[in-house]
């Protein structure tokens, strides 16, 4: 039941696209006591129904930038396969630290960033149209 509720709460955030999976990973490893690799595997599976069911609304609302999809997904699949294969046979603690350093950088710069267009509701920024 706790697992279901954790999935439900983080699922809302995952539907937004904001780190619901990261929160779920923290829940599973810290509070539910799961091993890191198992938690990662669950997290990947968890995202399948979550994203699949959130996407129709995003498409309907016109929030998907289609020009990005093909190149990003195509090359993302190659690197994801490679990384997943390596990660399932390796201790990725060092990598995780490096990623942590990267997250710190992004988090700080995100907080310091001037909210030039915080309410960019149309989803378009006219200065640099994609493609």
């Amino acid at each position, binding site marked *: 039941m706790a*697992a*279901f509720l954790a*999935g*439900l709460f983080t*699922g*809302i*955030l995952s*539907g*937004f*696209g*904001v*780190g619901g999976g*990261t929160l*779920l990973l923290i829940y599973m490893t810290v509070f539910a006591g799961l091993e890191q690799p*198992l938690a*990662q*595997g669950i*997290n*990947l*599976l*968890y*995202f*399948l129904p*979550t994203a*699949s*069911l959130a*996407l129709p609304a*995003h498409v309907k609302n016109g*929030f998907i930038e289609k020009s*990005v*999809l093909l*190149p*990003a*997904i*195509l*090359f*993302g699949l*190659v690197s*994801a*396969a490679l*990384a*997943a*294969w390596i*990660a399932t046979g390796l201790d990725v603690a060092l990598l995780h*630290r490096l*990623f*942590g350093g*990267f997250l*710190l*950088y*992004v988090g700080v710069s*995100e*907080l310091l960033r001037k909210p030039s267009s*915080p*309410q960019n*509701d*149309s*989803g378009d*920024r006219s200065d640099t149209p*994609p493609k």
Partner: protein
Amino acid sequence: MKKNTLRAVVSGSAAGLINGFFGGGGGMLLVPLLSRWLGLGDRKAFATSVAVILPLCILSSVIYLFRGTVEFSAALPYLLGGGMGGILGGKLFKNVNMLWLRRGFALLILYAGVRAAFFS
């Protein structure tokens, strides 16, 4: 290759690496790249990130399953909750205040960063 196509290729590849290695967190990388580097608006950056990450998760999870790192039964309760949350998230998204979403996102990234950098 057009500039933004190249940027999409690089962003997608980077998200794939993070997704495969850590079983999540690809969006933390992808959302800032899509909004700052490719110039997508906030809402588009978040939503498009979901669309890019999904196929990567499909492939990564197949590999995790195949390699015996995870079993489907262990994930089931999370899947049920996540599915319902996903429906809600998709429906609520157009009404979410992006300024607060961005700030919450930044704080979450910082927290995850501290954890990953110093406690992993």
